[in-house]
């Protein structure tokens, strides 16, 4: 193992690790693939199977639900919905068939699907039957309603007729009673009148009473016309004859009674008795008739009541039957209809009873009609019952068929689910297996890797350490040497840079001086120039002064001329004054006649005064002007003198300035030369400093490189051994240094002393600057 190269060792180790990794990976991948195939099967076959089964079941359930709704309510909307669900069922079945063709592993699918299809087809047939039965049922219902209506109508008609007859009989009876009452009233009245007449002895009243009985005959006739009963007729006749007898008796009584006191008492009594007897008979018969009528009335009423009750019962039974039908439909129990059918026998009994109690042909026909209608109703009801029962039966069969289909779906779903769970378990098992294998393999890889790493590392670090030691030694030696060189050249560089600095200072101050001198000379020449300009200006001013003087003199002259004129005016005024005074004198002399002239003289005097005044003012002004002009003149001359002096002084100044300017120029030249010399000196010093710097930096570089080398060695140490082993190499280093140190130390200072002063910069030489 020691003789192999580092690269081979490392690559060998890595290769082994890679092989292990590949093996583990391969196994894992194989397991995954198995799981994958199973999952594919799951996804493509089992899960769709379950899906489809569920879908089919759902559709079938919904179909059953809709059909149930239809079965209960016969509402067409349910049927339509059922058709939609049927379409969905078909679709699901179709999906199932497709799946069956595609799938290879679904074994139970085929037979279960066939089962389901059978059930569904059955169901479809039953649906058709249901629809037909529903239609028939509807028809039955129609018939039922119609016959029920007919029955009711007939019953009601009978009832109506009965009521009608009853009313008619009642009216008749009432009429008869009225008549008989009238008869009674008339009889009573007649008797009362009779008695009253007998009591009051008024035979006319008896005649009146007799006459009244006629009306009774009329009534009796009326009564007869409306009576049919034999007994009644006899009674009527009896009443009539009694009445007649009474009448005759009364008529026979009257003449006897009229005789009053002369009347035969025995005849009277006989006649009275006869009257009373007949009256009694009359009244009796009437009362008998009345009673008879009342009895008949009550009998009739009972009879009618009976019939009406019967008819009412019949109607009620009919209603009960109808209600029974509806109730049965609502409660969905045919038993109720059966109960309702029993009602019909009851109806028949009632009808028989009614028939027994009826005599009228019309009524009998009506009864028959009712019976007929009842029979029809019954038939319709039983038909309805039959159909309805059948519908229920069909419903039950449908449910069975649906259940079959659903059971088949469930079986398919179960098969699918069991397969799915099987696959899932298998996947779990295989994945578990794979993970176990992986774990074992990783552990093995870890162990192998560790061993290999250990051996390789050892193979590298031992030689590297040896190399490190040697490098350390060499680096240390180089470092110390370079440090010495560096320090000596540093000091040389410092001295040179100090020199350069002082030269810089000198140079800069010389620069300043030079610039100052230049500025001076510039300023001087500028001043000279300005002076010359000033001179020019003064000259111009002088000339102007002169001109001013001249013009002022002219003004003076003009003013004098003007004053002369003023004087003339003054004289004129004076003369005018004299004239005025003379005029006044003459006017005074003239006395009265000269009064006007005196006025004129006065006015002239005024004028003279004014003129004199004006002339005086003007004279004064001119005086003033002249004075001012003179003053101005004086000032001008003073100024002129001053300007002359200024001109002189500025000329002098100009000269001096020129001298200054020249001197400054020379100064500037001198300084320039000095500057040049200094610059040259500076250059040389700079050079020296640069050289010293260079050697210093070169030694610095060397030192730095030595440090770098030591750094690299330290890095290598770190890589090989880690930070703990730093002390070992340091110890090695110091050891090496002390061996070499003392040999070096003695010559080093001497040589450095020799190096520094002599060769680098000849500062000890006190030569003048001409060297530069």
């Amino acid at each position, binding site marked *: 193992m020691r003789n192999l190269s580092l690269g081979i060792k490392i690559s060998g180790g890595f290769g082994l690790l890679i092989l292990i990794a590949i093996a583990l990976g391969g196994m894992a991948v194989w397991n995954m693939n198995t799981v994958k195939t199973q999952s594919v099967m799951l996804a493509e076959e089992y899960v769709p199977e379950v899906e489809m089964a569920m879908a089919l079941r759902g559709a079938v359930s919904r179909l059953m639900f809709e059909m149930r709704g239809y079965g209960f309510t016969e509402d067409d909307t349910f049927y339509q919905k059922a058709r939609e669900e049927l379409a969905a069922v078909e679709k699901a079945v179709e999906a199932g068939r497709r799946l069956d063709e595609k799938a290879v592993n679904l074994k139970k699918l085929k037979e279960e699907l066939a089962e389901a299809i059978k059930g569904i087809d059955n169901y479809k047939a039953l649906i058709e039957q249901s629809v037909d039965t529903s239609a028939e049922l509807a028809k039955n219902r129609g018939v039922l309603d119609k016959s029920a209506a007919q029955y009711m109508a007939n019953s009601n008609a009978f009832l109506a007729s009965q009521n009608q007859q009853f009313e008619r009989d009642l009216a008749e009876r009432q009429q008869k009673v009225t008549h008989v009452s009238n008869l009674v009233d008339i009889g009573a009245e007649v008797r009362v009148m009779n008695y009253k007449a007998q009591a009051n002895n008024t035979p006319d009243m008896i005649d009146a009473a007799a006459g009244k009985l006629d009306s009774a005959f009329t009534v009796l006739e009326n009564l007869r016309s409306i009576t049919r009963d034999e007994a009644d007729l006899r009674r009527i006749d009896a009443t009539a004859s009694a009445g007649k007898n009474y009448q005759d008796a009364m008529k026979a009584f009257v003449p006897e009674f009229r005789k009053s006191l002369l009347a035969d008492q025995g005849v009277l009594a006989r006649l009275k008795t006869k009257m009373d007897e007949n009256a009694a008979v009359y009244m009796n018969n009437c009362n008998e008739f009345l009673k008879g009528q009342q009895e008949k009335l009550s009998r009739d009423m009972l009879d009618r009541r009976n019939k009406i009750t019967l008819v009412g019962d019949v109607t009620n039974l009919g209603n009960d039957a109808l209600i029974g039908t509806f109730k049965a439909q609502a409660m969905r129990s045919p038993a109720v209809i059966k109960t309702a059918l029993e009602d019909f026998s009851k109806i028949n009994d009632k009808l028989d009873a009614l028939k027994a109690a009826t005599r009228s042909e019309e009524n009998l026909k009506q009864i028959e009609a009712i019976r007929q209608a009842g029979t029809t109703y019954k038939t319709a009801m039983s038909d309805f019952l039959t159909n309805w029962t059948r519908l229920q039966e069909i419903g039950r069969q449908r449910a069975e068929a649906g259940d079959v289909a659903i059971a088949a779906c469930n079986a398919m779903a179960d098969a699918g689910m069991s397969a799915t769970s099987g696959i899932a378990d298998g996947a779990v098992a295989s994945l578990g297996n794979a993970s176990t294998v992986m774990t074992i393999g990783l552990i093995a890889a870890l162990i192998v890797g560790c061993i290999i790493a250990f051996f390789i590392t050892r193979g590298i670090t031992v030689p590297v350490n040896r190399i490190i030691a040697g490098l350390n030694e060499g680096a240390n030696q180089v470092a110390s040497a370079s440090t010495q060189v560096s320090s000596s050249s540093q000091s040389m560089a410092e001295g040179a840079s100090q020199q350069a600095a002082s030269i810089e200072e000198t140079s800069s101050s010389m620069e300043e001086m030079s610039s100052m001198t230049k500025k001076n000379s510039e300023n001087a020449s500028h001043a000279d120039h300005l002076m010359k300009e000033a001179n020019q200006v003064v000259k111009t001013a002088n000339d102007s002064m002169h001109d001013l003087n001249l013009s002022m003199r002219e003004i003076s002259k003009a003013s004098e001329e003007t004053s002369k004129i003023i004087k003339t005016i003054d004289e004129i005024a004076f*003369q005018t004054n*004299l004239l005025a*005074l003379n005029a*006044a*004198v003459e006017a*005074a002399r003239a*006395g*009265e006649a000269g009064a006007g002239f005196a006025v004129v003289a006065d006015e002239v*005097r005024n004028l003279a005064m004014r003129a004199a005044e004006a002339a005086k003012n003007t004279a004064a002004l001119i005086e003033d002007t002249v004075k001012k002009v003179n003053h101005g003149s004086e000032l001008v001359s003073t100024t002129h003198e001053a300007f002359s002096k200024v001109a002189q002084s500025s000329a002098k100044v100009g000269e001096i300035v020129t001298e200054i300017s020249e001197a400054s120029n020379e100064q500037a030249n001198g300084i320039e030369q000095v500057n040049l010399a200094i610059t040259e000196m500076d250059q040389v010093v700079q050079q020296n400093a640069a050289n010293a710097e260079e050697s210093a930096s070169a030694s610095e570089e060397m030192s730095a490189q030595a440090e770098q080398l030591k750094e690299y060695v330290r890095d290598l140490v770190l890589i090989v051994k880690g930070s703990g082993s730093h002390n070992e190499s340091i110890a090695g280093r110091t050891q090496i240094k002390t061996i070499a140190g003392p040999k070096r130390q003695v010559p080093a200072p001497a040589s450095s002393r020799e190096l520094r002063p002599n060769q680098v910069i000849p500062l000890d030489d006190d030569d003048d600057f001409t060297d530069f």
Partner: protein
Amino acid sequence: MTQDISLMDQAIREINTKIGKYLTFSLEKEEYGIGILKVKEIIGMMPITSVPRTPQFVKGVINLRGKVIPIVDLRAKFGMAGIPYTERTCIIVVEIDSSDATILIGIVVDAVSEVLNIHGDEIEDTPAFGTHLDTEYIMGMAKIDGGVKILLNIDRVLSSAEIQDFQSIA
């Protein structure tokens, strides 16, 4: 006729009572007045021909439109110092009554002022300064504007002897 008489009377009265117009002139800052009737003419200064052997105050004679008139310097007459003649210096030609005739004399004055109408209440009689002074030549004192103007009796200014002389000169 009576009118003339009344006029004359008035004139006389006026002359006697000193009321009337006076021509005022100035001499050495003093104002004097002469009655207007005494004044013949006023003329400006003109060259005077001096006559020898005349008193100091007689300056000479002038030729005024053919007439020879003697000129008296009033300053010298009043004893004031003489001054050079200015442009305002004038000659007043006055008529003086002498014993027998009126003669014209010109007096030199510093300046002529105006003709004043002086009322009676403004005239004061000459105050007596003592017996030595002869104040006949002063007619009176006129109070005008706070100042006093001396009204001269020109006839008395010059004595008769002098007048005689003048007569001879003229």
